[in-house]
């Protein structure tokens, strides 16, 4: 192994972006490992119940400066990372650095004027990671919609039931929840708008899909809404749902959630 040099250093112009990323995943995951390679920082982890999986990718192009001399894993408590990021000002930039041998990672927040810097050091942890290979899947149905709309419908439907049945047919998608007080139906149809692509609702359908998911998880996924104006829901029958929040030029957050399956059916 090479002698200790700066193993990893990345600078982001907006600490707020990193803050939003952590806010979007910290309630789902406890401690997890950031994999740093020269293509970027990524993270993959399951929630404590092992029914959901989160994949975050922040590409090196998304950083103002990025240097990773050798691949390294940073095991971090997301709760602690969120605490550190709370100390960042709205306009601050952030430098993340660690050398491969030390047991800490340093976050340096600075403003553009350069008259204030704040440095925080976090202890790294050793975490057993089990990476799952996620195959490239051709989904039967891909829905793209404004992320605010997705957040709203998840919030609305969770007042009615614990799970939502999503059924997608040509040109429209239905979300249904049932509960003690009644039922909720939300229907979205294709909507195109050339001048405002963020408000577009598009449905690519190979074959009709109908799946049921736990709403509490979807509500949690919706915490990534501030990161992206649009969200993509990718579904295939009897396959996990993939909820993707693209971060333009930076990367993405993908959430996977196992569907509720009536096992007798198979």
């Amino acid at each position, binding site marked *: 192994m090479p002698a200790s040099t700066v193993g990893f250093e990345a600078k982001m112009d907006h600490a707020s972006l990193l803050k939003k990323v952590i806010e979007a995943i910290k309630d789902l995951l406890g401690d997890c490992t950031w994999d740093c390679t020269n293509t970027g920082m990524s993270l993959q982890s399951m929630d*404590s119940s092992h029914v959901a*999986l989160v994949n975050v990718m922040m590409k090196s192009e998304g950083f103002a400066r990025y240097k990773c001399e050798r691949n390294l894993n940073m095991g971090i408590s997301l709760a602690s990372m969120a605490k550190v990021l709370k100390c960042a000002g709205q306009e601050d930039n952030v430098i993340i650095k660690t050398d491969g041998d030390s047991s800490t990672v340093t976050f340096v927040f600075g403003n553009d004027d350069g008259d204030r810097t704040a440095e925080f050091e976090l202890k790294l942890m050793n975490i057993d990671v089990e990476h799952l*290979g996620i195959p490239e899947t051709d989904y039967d149905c891909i829905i793209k919609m404004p992320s605010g709309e997705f957040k709203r419908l998840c919030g609305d439907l969770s007042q009615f039931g614990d799970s939502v049945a999503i059924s997608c047919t040509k040109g429209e998608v239905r979300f249904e929840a049932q509960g003690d007080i009644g039922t909720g139906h939300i229907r979205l149809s294709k909507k195109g708008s050339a001048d405002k692509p963020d408000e577009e609702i598009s449905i690519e359908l190979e074959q009709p899909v109908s799946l049921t998911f736990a709403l509490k998880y979807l509500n949690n996924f919706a915490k990534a809404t501030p990161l992206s104006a649009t969200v993509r829901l990718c579904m295939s029958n009897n396959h996990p749902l993939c909820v993707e929040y693209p971060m333009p030029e930076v990367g993405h957050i993908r959430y996977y959630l196992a569907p509720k399956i009536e096992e007798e059916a198979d």
Partner: protein
Amino acid sequence: MDNNAATTSELYHKTPEIFTAGLKKKILLVPAAILGHSSSEEHNQVPSTEGSFEISLQKLPHPRTGELSLWAFHLAGGKVYELCQLDEKLRSWFVGNYVLEDGTIKCLVPSDPLFLVLPYLLDAKKRKRFQPLNQILEGADTKSDDTAAGFGTLLAPNVYLKDLDLICSVKGFKDEKFYKLSRAKLTVWLKAKVKLLSEALEREHVNVSTKITAAGYSRKEDTQTKDQYERFAFGMISDQLPLSLQEEMAIALGLGEVKTHSNAANGTEAKKVKGAPVSAAEDYSKALKVLAAVPEKKLTAAQKQLAKVDKTGMKSISSYFTKPADGK
């Protein structure tokens, strides 16, 4: 468990010649149910055919640990018992006018034969096909001398595994059946077991709380909640569950927080169990510790909310994606 153990010591003083013969004798406590009317005795080593009952002792892998252990098969009742042993150095048995130096307590604890096949059903499920039973057990080392007889006994048609449809989806005709483990059925089956057991615990006023009290002493205000009984019952049952299933089933049965609770309770939760066989109680505490050992993280409020979500019908996400071994 409801183990109406019948000691068989009375017989010995009528037959003192057993001891003069120089054989090594052991005492085995057996449930009254398999004795029929007359009580008789059982040699540990030899499958005996004495009196009105017949049990055969066979080696089979334990469903939780995979280690070989001894199981007693009672053909007439179609029941399976696990042979449990409690060692204590400073104990001997009085048998009539004799002292038997070996003071271990061995007893037969009723078990469900379905537990024995569960690990193989789990393995077979990965192949995503309905399969005949002998093919499911292929993964098991049925050929080895140690277990061949055991599996042979277990597979005897329509005796021990006749209730397999309780945890499997079944396809096929009368004499040719194909099985696949159904998680939904398994959950229902376990739920029923936990319910029955927790009711029995409640009826017998077994102490399942963390407090240690003297046997036979119970204060009115020390009421134990249904939840505590259910958790304890699940602890007992998960003693027979493959490790990989324990956590999953705890969550499926809505007992997902067993871990955090038993953390504080640790082993003490099971130590002092009034009226239950001591060896058994020791085992249960082990099972609880296994659960406790898995996650020791502090959960945030939001994570606790998610842990409470009803996850019936949701498979582990890792079952959809390839594990690192066969993936990248």
